[in-house]
């Protein structure tokens, strides 16, 4: 009798958990809507923020960290960029690699955000099956006198919602484009060599951005 009660209790607890899980699953924003919401929000912030428009990198980076980065899976992105050597890396090395790669991507691409204009976006609706767990969301940037530029987000369904693991701009993957470079460094200096190379690169980018603040607004001028 006691064991039956126990089983019942466990069963109901499991059911309750499952219900919560299902609810969480269905509560995930669909990937195309998520991309649209985040991009419009970021464009809106930029449109209202004179500092970011003027090329304030620190402010841009902290805005991106708050608004966009939670929707990226940097471990998966780094795995994609590192390629076969990823399998041989220790968990600690993977963590360090992902941190440095994340910093590199954020530092380099934050500056390009000043040209974000929401009216140029053409958000393409995604045709997906409910069972799909790996999709590509397409946003096109329309501009006069040239072919529309495709921005594609490869996204994967995780336990914490849909996460981006690759971004392609005009067909060029920001992640895969590092593969040869990373492989070359790993071949010559090993995984730790790649970590220190990335760390050095990030330090030089950080000092360059604080060292010459006057250079950024000159190119970012509208």
């Amino acid at each position: 009798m006691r064991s039956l009660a126990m089983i019942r209790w466990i069963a109901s607890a499991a059911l309750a958990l499952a219900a919560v899980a299902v609810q969480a699953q269905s509560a995930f924003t669909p990937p195309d809507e998520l991309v649209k919401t985040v991009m419009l929000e970021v464009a809106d912030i930029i449109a209202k923020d004179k500092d970011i428009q003027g090329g304030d990198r620190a402010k841009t980076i902290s805005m991106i960290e708050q608004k966009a980065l939670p929707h990226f899976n940097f471990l998966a992105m780094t795995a994609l960029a590192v390629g076969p050597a990823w399998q041989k890396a220790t968990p600690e090395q993977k963590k360090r690699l992902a941190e440095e790669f994340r910093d590199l991507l954020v530092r380099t691409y934050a500056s390009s955000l000043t040209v974000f204009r929401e009216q140029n976006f053409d958000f393409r609706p995604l045709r997906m099956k409910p069972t799909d767990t790996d999709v590509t969301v397409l946003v096109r940037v329309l501009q006069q006198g040239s072919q529309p530029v495709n921005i594609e987000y490869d996204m994967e369904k995780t336990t914490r919602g849909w996460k981006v693991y690759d971004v392609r701009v005009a067909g060029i993957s920001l992640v895969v484009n590092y593969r040869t470079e990373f492989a070359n460094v790993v071949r010559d200096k090993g995984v730790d060599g790649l970590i220190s190379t990335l760390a050095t690169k990030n330090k030089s980018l950080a000092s360059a951005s604080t060292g010459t603040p006057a250079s950024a607004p000159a190119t970012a001028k509208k």
Partner: protein
Amino acid sequence: MSAGLSILRAVLLASVLLVATGCATTASDPRDPFEGFNRAMWTFNDTLDESFIKPVSRGYKAVAPEPLRNMVRNFFANIDDVFNGANNMLQGKFLDGWTDWFRVIVNTTFGVLGINDVASDMRLEKHNEDFGQTFAVWGVGDGPYLVLPFFGPYTLRDSGALILDWELDPVVRARPIALRNTLIGTRFISKRTDFLDASALFEQAALDRYVFLRDAYLQRRRSLIYDGNPPRPPRPQESQE
């Protein structure tokens, strides 16, 4: 036979000769067997860009207001559309081809000789095609990666197709020579100016700028050949969170 074309021929011939005379040294990438030669040419182009082309482009951006720069870009883009259309036809994409040619008619008339891209406002979208892409669709492989002096990154197939692109280009055929040179120069600076932000980004992003640019170029060409939908390689196994 235009002079512009003979310059191009000379550049291509000199490149082939230089490659043939054995700069093929440290070929770590199978797509880039002439890496030694290509790196030398890339350095040459990069120096030229830094010391001359980039400053001129920055000056153009500073002096010419955006509406004027748009007009200049549109004018040359309108000429390109004639060949976008031809290449779409040759690739069997007839609807795209007719769209391109209709764009030319609309933009040349209502857009005043192409300086206004009214066709895009009418949702007639621009395409990006060239003879290199057409040959690729016909089944010609990329061939080795090749950095041409002055012209920049190409593949062997695309540098062959470049001869056709130039042979038929009305800007290259324009006369008198002074006008032709002005047009070629203006078009080049207009295009370079559009890439100022992107190239600055690349310089920041890359660990090895030569490799980064090469891989980006090859990815971009592949995307263009497949009109934005290249078959995706299988995703390698990776750790889950």
